[in-house]
């Protein structure tokens, strides 16, 4: 069992609180993503696990052992940095063999290990070449090989896909997932890209300004975000968020967003009574806003097309309803033009509600 457990980790740099009371557990052989915007504290967290930075408070466990006082070299943790420090004057083989030579392993064993790792990562053609001739993706793989050759129990990757071209990133992302399965290793990687996080990670810890906002599987984070931050961070195009208030209209409870409203009667029990007096945020995923040519029922409302973006297989249409702009996801069969009048049908049962002040979810979409 080689899981990683962080208990109440805090870290300050000068006056700035980089990490605040971070607690999370990564199980044995899990592929865990730490996701958050730039500056959220992701790299610091990885460095604390690796032992390159000491936390001000809290404990780091690797397996069953508390490793706070164990030096990085003895933690059996490999870390691949965002910009991998590869020696330009050494061949791929020499670069990968380097950590083994430091350990004074004999030449035959080194050769065997390097070739084994080289084959797994499909970089045998790079072993005799020098780094200057590598592409971005190849350089990443050589850096990864140099860490894997030590057979670490836990592998940490800091933004492993960041510096790659969009197209290469897509295939490398899959490779990363395959590799982790093949090596059967506990792997933790950081990313600022939510698509990468959910596509690759078994579970994802969403981190914002040093605080873990939510930990969960991809589907859970998407359909049940616990805060506005997670709701906004996970999902592309981003969830629409607009200010609203809960009001009683005759028999019905509605979320009033001034220019339109959402019927909450059937879900009123979800919203705590105190929400009545609070300012709320209404969250609508782009795929839950349907555009129609004519008002199908009395709940439909009118809107104007502001912008359309062609995604190839689908289209994102930005519409304005009074002062509110909403992004909607539609099929590519329908073409919309700038300024066109459309009608909007909301999947009201899928609406999310958050407290405006605290950002905490008060009602989640029903699926």
């Amino acid at each position, binding site marked *: 069992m080689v899981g990683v457990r962080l208990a109440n980790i805090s870290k300050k740099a000068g006056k700035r609180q980089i990490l605040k009371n971070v607690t999370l557990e990564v199980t044995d052989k899990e592929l865990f993503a730490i996701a958050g915007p730039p500056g959220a504290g992701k790299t610091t967290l990885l460095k604390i696990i690796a032992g390159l930075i000491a936390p001000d408070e809290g404990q780091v466990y690797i397996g069953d052992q508390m490793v706070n006082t164990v030096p990085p070299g003895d933690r059996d943790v490999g870390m691949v940095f965002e910009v991998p420090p590869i020696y330009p004057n050494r061949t791929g083989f020499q670069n990968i063999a380097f950590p083994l030579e430091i350990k004074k392993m004999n030449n035959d064993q080194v050769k065997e290990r390097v070739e084994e790792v080289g084959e797994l990562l499909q970089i045998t053609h790079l072993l005799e070449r020098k780094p200057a001739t590598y592409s971005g993706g190849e350089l990443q793989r050589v850096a990864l090989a140099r860490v894997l050759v030590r057979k670490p129990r836990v592998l940490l990757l800091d933004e492993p896909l960041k510096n790659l071209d969009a*197209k290469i990133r897509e295939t490398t992302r899959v490779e990363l997932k395959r590799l982790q399965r093949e090596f059967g290793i506990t792997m933790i990687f950081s990313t*600022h890209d939510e698509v990468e996080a959910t*596509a690759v990670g078994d579970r994802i810890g969403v981190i914002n300004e040093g605080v873990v906002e939510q930990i969960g599987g991809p589907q859970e984070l998407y359909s049940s975000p616990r805060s506005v931050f997670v709701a906004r961070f996970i999902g592309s195009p981003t969830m629409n968020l607009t200010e609203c208030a809960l009001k009683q209209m005759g028999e019905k409870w509605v979320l009033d967003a001034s220019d339109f409203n959402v019927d909450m009667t059937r879900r009123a029990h979800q919203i705590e009574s105190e929400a009545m007096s609070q300012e709320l945020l209404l969250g609508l995923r782009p795929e839950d806003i349907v555009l129609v040519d004519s008002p199908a029922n009395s709940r439909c409302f009118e809107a104007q097309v502001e912008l359309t973006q062609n995604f*190839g297989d689908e289209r994102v249409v930005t519409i304005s309803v009074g002062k509110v702009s909403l*992004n909607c996801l539609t099929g590519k069969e329908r073409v919309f033009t700038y300024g066109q009048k459309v009608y909007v049908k909301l999947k009201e049962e899928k609406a999310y509600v958050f407290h405006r002040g605290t950002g905490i979810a008060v009602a989640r979409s029903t699926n």
Partner: protein
Amino acid sequence: MPKLVVKNLRKLFGTFEAVKDVGFQVEEKETLCLLGPSGCGKTTTLRIIAGLEVPTSGQVFVDGVLVNDVPPQKRQIGLVFQDYAIFPHLSVFENIAYGLRVRKMPEAQLRTKVHDTASLIGVDNILDVPGRKLGLSEMQRVAIGRSIVLDPKLLLLDEPLSNIDAKARERMRAELGKLQKEIGIATVYVTHDQLEAMTLADRIAVMRNGLIEQIGTTSEIYDNPRTLFVGNFIGSPSMNLIDCELVYSEERAILKSGDFALDVTEFAETLRAKSKGRELVLGVRPEDVSVHVRKTDEEAMECEVQLVEPIGARSIYHLKIGRLAVLAKGYAMPEVDVGSKLWTTFNKHKLHVFDKKTEEAIV
């Protein structure tokens, strides 16, 4: 009259031919995107249009005037760089006014001009803020404002969104799209990101090895790629490409690849006329591959799930049909996991067939 005409452009760096024979036009109010992988010649083409590189041969016409011998600053072209290059110590007003001051415009006229531009790009409320205090999206606006205040005939944007993190990029892309509509200046936009090109451009020129492989509207490029490269480069995740051959059995035409077989009798005429038994590549986009838990269709093929990539409401499924690896993109199915046995069908109306040797599209 087109705002920009580029004819037979060629550029050699030593013996390396960065741009081989590039030609295109950009109409009034149109946004054309030069799209391709790094090293395809897109940035060199842009730099030649701007006058920052001298072409080995070929012509550049701006608003009908040949500008080959006109220096960059006199070409009436606005150039917005990757890093925006905002002066940190100057206010938004002075950043926008900079080009006008260089041109010694009288103060009163300059003020009107800067204010008009600022309100067009939505920065009229932050005119006194120094450059160093601007957020990304404001910097983008100011950088564009600084170019359009000079009334350029053409705007050139060089990978303006490439240094920005994913979430902010989504927002800035939409903002840039709206801004373009409001400004309405003919624009050439360079990027390696196909999604950026799809969402921002009216037309896309896909470049490879110094040549334009295909030029067309975003829908044309996506739905009817003329070459294997274009089919593969546009779309995320990439189109499935399956090496296969056309065989006939019991009056049915079949695309065969090992154990995999797809009945294409409906297209047999076209295929036969254009292919003549050559090696073929079948292309099918992941969203045109559907997966079902039960066998719903006569032609459904059995497959096994190798990997699942959940992406919001959708998932990408890595499937194995026999020994063939295929990607499918569809609604997330929580019950599906690695090892699940499913049934898959290809949307026959969305198939692409390419000739393996020439890489050109047949169907």
